[in-house]
């Protein structure tokens, strides 16, 4: 088992295309096991995604998934606390490409406060299939998506008091199950 990651080779052709198209933007890239990830600033996300979908040299017509990540106390250095990763695929070239944004909260993260810093533009207008995956990221991490058609919690109930996949949320919960309001016929 290799203890050190293999040397990163940033030679994915899409990276060059994106760099040439956005000369003024701050772009970073990583590579691991042949999978290239482009790291963009949150404000540029939608523009870059639209370019990746619409430019014929990129042509990422398929959104595979949207993943949220919480890097609280992660051993390696990261740019921000939270990340959202868009997993794109191009059917014509059988190529995969990952776009990532980092976000830093401006409010305490133990509740479900509406944090203006944890907000990115939704990709639903580019790929309608982003609707439920983005709802899941919102549900689990409390990251909001601007211009999302229907941003409600998808798996948990609507008045759930926290976002449970954050690292500061305990594995066994905070007693939501035990303290859940019981409705019986007498109390109605």
């Amino acid at each position: 088992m290799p203890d050190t990651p293999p040397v990163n080779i940033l030679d994915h052709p899409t990276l060059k295309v994106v760099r040439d198209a956005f000369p003024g933007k701050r772009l970073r890239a990583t590579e691991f096991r042949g999978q290239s990830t482009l790291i963009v600033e949150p404000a540029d996300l939608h523009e870059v995604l639209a370019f990746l979908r619409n430019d014929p040299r990129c042509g990422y017509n398929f959104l595979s998934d949207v993943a949220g990540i919480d890097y609280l106390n992660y051993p390696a250095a990261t740019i921000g606390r939270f990340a959202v990763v868009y997993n794109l695929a191009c059917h014509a070239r059988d190529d995969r490409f990952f776009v990532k944004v980092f976000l830093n909260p401006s409010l305490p993260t133990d509740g479900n406060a509406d944090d203006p810093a944890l907000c990115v533009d939704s990709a639903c207008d580019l790929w309608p299939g982003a609707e439920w995956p983005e709802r899941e990221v919102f549900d689990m991490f409390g990251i909001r998506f601007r211009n999302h058609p229907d941003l409600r919690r998808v798996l948990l109930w609507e008045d759930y008091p926290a976002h449970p996949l954050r690292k500061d949320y305990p594995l066994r919960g905070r007693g939501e199950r035990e303290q859940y309001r019981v409705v019986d016929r007498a109390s109605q």
Partner: protein
Amino acid sequence: MPFTLKPEQGWTVDADTTRYLASHVDTGDRWVLNFGPQHPATHTTLRLVLELDGERIARCTPHIGYLHSGFEKLAEHLDYNQYVAIASRMNYLSPIANDICWHHAVEKLFGIDITPRCKVLRTIMAEVARIQDHLLCVGAAGLDLNAFTGFIYAFNVREKTYDLYDFISGQRYHPDWTRVGGAMQDLPDEEMFKTLVRKLIDEEVPAALRDLETLLNRNRIFMDRTRGVGLLTHDECVAWSITGPIARASGVKRDVRKDEPYLCYADNWDGQGAEAVTFQVPICTDGDTYARYLVRLEEIRQSCSIVRQLIGRIPAGPLDVFADAKVTKPRKTDVYGSIEGLIQHFELVMSNRGWKPPVAECYGANETANGELGFFIVSDGGPRAWRAKCRPPSFINYQTIAKMCEGHLLSDIVACIGSLNVVAAELDR
């Protein structure tokens, strides 16, 4: 709150979804019906809030999450071997496919190349899982439309796939069979395994397929209930991120086994120039419920053919990657019989030791029966995943249920749900 529909503002249903309404006279008399979560035709716990105009669906709002059990949170607290038991429980129709996919992603992260024997056995079991899953789906497609006999034909054979799981792992329902770099145990008896598999794919499955096709394929009632119902076009499938048989029934030429080959679907899988298994990817262009049924039937045939190509040439040699890789747990005979085995066992199971994968993140995907199943694993270098995001095909496919149902009659919902083959455990995780 229990009966809220989708908020009025925001997403407006586009003209495509309402094309079935062309000949329908809107009475303007709408009523709301709650469908599920406890209803036999929802398969498990799906809930749809329907706004109906007479019997025609004007609006459909899916609500999910009734089976949510925090699998992804658990993934951050269980190690790479333990989580296979949870990944398996995401899919109770073909659990072993999820085992294989989870460890495919983990091994990609670790950089392990598994042995040829393991690749062949995993490929065989992945195809048996596909057969098992599709059999339920085509059988239940009949069941939901009142053809109970078809369901029994399919379930009869599914029982035999459970016998096979029982044989290789000792568990009938959730085998939890794979491990990092190998499997929990080698085949107890290789000849017996071959006999069981050959009997399944050469006798039992073809017989059941014949019965099913005779019963349903040209059945007037079945065709009337399924043709033109739940239409999705090629472009809609791509836009809505749909994969698997549902996308292929709409003409999307995409199969992870062909496009991003892994296991024995890739050339040179044994390191000595072996060719990839040959199979056809069935494509239909109708995009309706009936087309999905046909695609699944043909995929069962193709899976049988893949298994037939491999069953005669299971390579000899070890199933696990070699002991010096320090990633697989040694066999119990080694643990109790040698000091090296004992040390390696404890190196992996002790809470302050364990695997040391690279600090990185990677995505590994497999083509399972419902579509592309993937795990996006973020590793912090410890024995547990920092984050293991699952890409569940059911969840992504099920977003289109509203689009498929709107404009149809109430009784067509069960045909649509059946053709999506939603596994609620994977939907809600």
